């Protein structure tokens, strides 16, 4: 859906998406890195389980909700990636203890 421009010379950052290593770039938000990964990163909604992807990328729509380093319901579009970050695609509502 998206590709990186060749002029982007930022250093790579490795994150893990559902346990699989994914190459991101320093300064990417979690949502941008997920959309750039080419993987199926659709979450499912808490209400009907419908699949969704980020819609606004600016912190207002909450369609980018994702589990980051064990904490659920994070807005992936507002969080920068960090080396070794563990991302889980959130299916349904946030679980107790996450």
């Amino acid at each position, binding site marked *: *859906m998206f*590709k990186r*421009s060749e002029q982007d010379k930022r250093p790579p950052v490795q994150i893990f998406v559902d346990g699989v290593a994914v190459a991101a770039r320093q300064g990417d938000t979690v949502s*941008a890195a997920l959309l*750039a990964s080419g993987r199926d990163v659709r979450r499912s909604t808490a209400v009907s389980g419908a699949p969704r992807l980020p819609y606004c*990328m600016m912190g207002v729509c909450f369609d980018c909700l994702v589990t980051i380093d064990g904490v659920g319901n994070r807005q992936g579009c507002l969080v920068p990636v960090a080396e070794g970050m563990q991302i889980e695609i959130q299916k349904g509502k946030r679980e107790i203890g996450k």
Partner: protein
Amino acid sequence: MTTTPSRENYDFVVIGAGPAGLAAAATSAEAGLSTLLLDENIGPGGQVFRAIASTPVTAREQLGTDYWVGADLVQALRAGNTEVVQRATVWSLDRNLEIGVSIGGGSSFVKARRVILATGALERPFPIPGWTLPGVMTAGAAQTMLKSSALVPDGRTVIAGQGPLLWLLAAQILRLGGRIDRILDTTERGNYFAALPHAFAFLTSPYFAKGLALMREVRAKVQVVSGVAELAAVGDGQLASVSYVAGGKRETIPADLLLLHQGVVPNVNLAMAAGVEHRWNELQLCWSPVLDASGNSSIEGIAIAGDGAGIGGATAAVVRGRIAARAAVEALAPVAAAKLPPLATLRAELAKAERGRAFLDTLFRPSPQFRIPSGDTIVCRCEEVTAKDILDAVAIGATGPNQLKAYRRTGMGPCQGRLCGLTVTELMAQARAKSPQEIGYYRLRAPVKPITLAELAAVPKSEDDVKAVVRG
């Protein structure tokens, strides 16, 4: 790295580091007032100047000269003594000018003598059938990815809607080597006539030449369909095609990505939750705060600058930021204010920056069918409530957005009405034959962004706070 505000009290707290916030904070710091700038994003810039200090797009001309103006604003801010905290989510503001802010998972309060809200704008909801499908995003979302991560669409891409941002985004995508298959222009033909009385101001404004050049650049490379009167995203769990009607003819084109845009509206949540009076703006079709000429709101000590004060664009936002900050400096330190640019100069700059805006507002006024959906089209994305659900609720007695919450939970999901509020107001106004002003809006309350109960419970407490709730 997590930084928190170094003090509990400031002369001046600015919320939002976009054009208005950057200018306001720099002005107040220049006047020697203790100034705190809180911003939710990773770096300064807001939306227009997003990632201005970190963008990987090195070919400057690809983003355009208007973008790089932001670098000067950031430089001016950094030259002063403003304390800037990024990734700071303000979730509360009250009449005592006490601000609740969440930073790195922990919350605290700071108190201000003056607050400037520069929370900017968000894209108007575009509730068409299928707009919740993966693969449908806002044009602003694509632009955010382009500026901050140099990411461009490379699948089959359709851009639909209207307004200046749409053409700028299209040009930027093409310059960075991205793909656009078709642009579907939803501008209503009648709007061209309605906008005519404002044409002279527009033709003599900087918008005209820039806009024309952008449209030429894009039209040379992309097929543009105008007069699009119906629009739907189609797919099963993922966008597969875009269906539209133009000139009475229906067409369906395969698509991986649909980018929607029909203008921007003030981001009102924090101001409304603070109790600032807002009125329905019949031209811009949104809620705007009631402000005096310096941006002061109905609440003593709270001013609003930038697009949150009513849509005026980035250049106007910068000047409004300076005007609001100057007025606040005058109230707190009149001697220091005398050294700032005179108000008359700033007002003249604002008038210049706002030239042509009425033309744009009229020309790009979105059509009713793209604002007020029907049938199974989702209105509230969070709670997945359709237009029919809302009309059914009206039929059995729901009178306004706040009653509707009890019937259907609209606006009660995590986005707190940001993506459905305007649609709900207009839909209910139409169904009940009332004006949007009479129908009203959701009653917004803190926290205006979700925080956990644990975070709330862990907020530092004074002895008085404890006394207020402990017996004996």
